């Protein structure tokens, strides 16, 4: 089960093994009622291990059904806290090479302060709460799960 989308008229939640379509997320949240849109994109950052090995990618695994459910609740929780017009949360599964996006969160609100606050809360809470895991893939082929 590598692809899963849930969306209402106002929220788009997507876990996908394909490249994230960030332009589509921005188009989805666009609205005449929005004055400010904040988009966060998390990408795989180049890193070097202590022994000099280079990171080549992150492999993402999700407990798909539960992750989608948690993301929908995050969206609902955000809507209780801020006056959100539309929002989109996209997250990758599978291999995400250095420089490529693994997560994108777009929030459209009437005013910018709310869009920034909701977007920041969503990415922070996603990282703490949603059952998705990353494995670091190093140039020598070794993989290390991140469970901090």
């Amino acid at each position, binding site marked *: 089960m590598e692809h899963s989308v849930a969306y209402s008229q106002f929220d788009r939640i997507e876990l996908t093994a394909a490249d994230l379509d960030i332009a589509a997320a921005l188009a989805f949240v666009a609205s005449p009622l929005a004055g400010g849109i904040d988009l966060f994109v*998390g990408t795989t950052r180049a890193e070097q291990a202590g022994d000099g090995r280079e990171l080549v990618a992150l492999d*993402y*695994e*999700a*407990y798909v*059904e*539960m*992750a989608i*459910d948690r993301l929908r609740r995050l969206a609902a929780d955000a809507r209780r806290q801020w006056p959100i017009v539309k929002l989109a949360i996209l*997250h990758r599964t599978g291999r995400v090479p250095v420089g490529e996006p*693994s*997560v994108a969160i777009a929030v459209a609100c009437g005013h910018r302060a709310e869009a920034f606050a909701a977007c920041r809360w969503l*990415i922070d809470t*996603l*990282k*703490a*709460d*949603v*059952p*998705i*895991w*990353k*494995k670091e893939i190093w140039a020598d082929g070794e993989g290390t*799960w*991140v*469970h*901090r």
Partner: protein
Amino acid sequence: MTITVQFFALLRDRAGVGETKVSLPDGMTVEQAVDRLTAQFPAIVGAVSRIAFAVNREYADGQTILHDGDELALIPPVSGG
């Protein structure tokens, strides 16, 4: 009762399987079920700093009573984003 158990990430690697079914006495708690699982899959012990639980895709604590057909997931520290 029979429940389905899900392992993820390093726990899946250590268990050697992503999913397994286990038969347990009726009325067991999550904690009691996990004790049985660590006996069956000793390699998961100490693999991660802490394990959270989900029953039927809801976070649940160790005292939650399990029922026939439940899906119990062992959730290592998440690292999405």
